């Protein structure tokens, strides 16, 4: 068999199902490979597919109800190219005060059917921002700075109980880079005061607006090995850049598909 036929055969047997693991040349990739196998074993393809489907539908603009209780997480980089890592975290339904006490002065907008909605960290809809969004005015550098330049807290935030979790896409757009996080949760159940959710997952896509290319994709999958459900209360979040940031061995960040060209901060 010549090299051409060998290459054809290799392409025939290529699998992309655990594709992010195929960046296993890096240490983080290797970690992801392991995590992907674990998640694959526990969750199975149907659950993964179902989650992505919900997220995909939302991204296309399907309404998900007004003021949904949700939380979402974005790990990102300085969108103004000023040089610090940025993490944006949005909590709603009782958890917003946590953000405020963390000293965060952050505003993000939530994409909903092409209409941007703005939220203040205390969870109150900022009406002026809504008007501003409808006007279609661009973000000024100062506003960008207010929105995006925020250092991740040193202590991981503990998740608070939420009534329901809805799939939601959050977009943070800067002068050059756009970060979009799609969060979803599979069907949940509620027992007494405990809300459970099956395998909530966040997909974060970093896109270079100049070239329109995806420069980085990350997945955050929260799971408790050996159990089919995890409790929202048990989640512990941390900077997404950490491959594993599980204070209680409950939450794992996995995957990076390629090295980011975002400069000196990766």
């Amino acid at each position, binding site marked *: 068999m*010549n090299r051409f036929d*060998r290459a054809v055969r290799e*392409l*025939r047997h290529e699998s992309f199902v655990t594709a992010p693991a*195929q960046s296993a*040349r890096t240490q983080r990739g290797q970690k992801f490979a392991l995590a992907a196998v674990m998640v694959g074993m526990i969750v199975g393809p149907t659950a993964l597919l179902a989650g992505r489907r919900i997220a*995909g539908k939302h991204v296309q603009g399907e309404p998900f109800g007004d003021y949904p209780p949700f939380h979402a997480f974005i790990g990102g980089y300085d969108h103004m190219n000023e040089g610090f890592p940025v993490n944006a975290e949005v909590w709603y339904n009782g958890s917003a005060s946590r953000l405020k006490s963390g000293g965060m002065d952050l505003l993000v907008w939530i994409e909903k059917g092409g209409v941007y909605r703005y939220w203040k960290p205390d969870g109150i809809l900022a009406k002026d921002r809504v008007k501003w969004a409808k006007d279609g005015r661009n973000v000024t550098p100062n506003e960008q700075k207010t929105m995006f330049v925020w250092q991740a807290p040193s202590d991981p935030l503990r998740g608070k109980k939420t009534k329901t979790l809805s799939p939601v896409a959050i977009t943070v757009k800067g002068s050059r880079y756009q970060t979009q996080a799609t969060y979803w949760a599979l069907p949940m159940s509620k027992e007494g005061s405990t809300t459970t959710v099956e395998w909530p997952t966040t997909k974060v896509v970093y896109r270079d607006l100049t070239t329109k290319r995806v420069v980085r994709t990350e997945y955050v999958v929260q799971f408790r090995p050996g159990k089919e459900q995890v409790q929202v209360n048990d989640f512990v979040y941390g900077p997404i850049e950490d491959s594993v940031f599980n204070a209680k061995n409950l939450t794992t960040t996995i995957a990076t598909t390629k090295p980011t060209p975002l400069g000196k901060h990766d």
Partner: protein
Amino acid sequence: MNLVRLDAWEAERLRKGDAQAAERVIRREYSRVLRFLVHLTGNLDDAQDLGQQIFGDLAKVFEGYEARCSVRTWLHRVAYRQFTNLRRRATWESIDDNLACSISSRSEDAVVLAAAIAALPDDLRLPFLLCEIQQLKVVEAAAVLQIPAGTVKSRCFAARQKLRTELAETFGMEPHPKPELNTGGTQ
């Protein structure tokens, strides 16, 4: 139960929203269809999104299923249709260099070949992908692309010939084609 009837039965289960049938089809076909989509779109993200659209709602996908083809062929046909819809969108652009990144575990030869396939014109690329990479029969590829089987066969041969000629020097081989099409069987 012959294969066609089995496919028809499975499609019927999918239409009715049978979760077990859906899981069976996902386990059996998702990887293959995703590979096709990756080659079509040139990047893993778009391929995954399209894959989710297809496999996330199999009941809808199989609403218009015609029992003349297999479930696998039907899924490829839907995948191809989804890709053409995506390509029509003004905002979409192929990101071919992401493909090489997504598949960094490939050998160098496979990366070179994948790039050469991506550079082929669609009328040669698609038959080659379906017959040689996806290993569909010629009649199945014809059903996916909605063109005659003879056309698929000749285009696949031409694609292989072109690739071998282009890569002859790189791979250190004679640029003569060696057709090995799977022409057997009917649906």
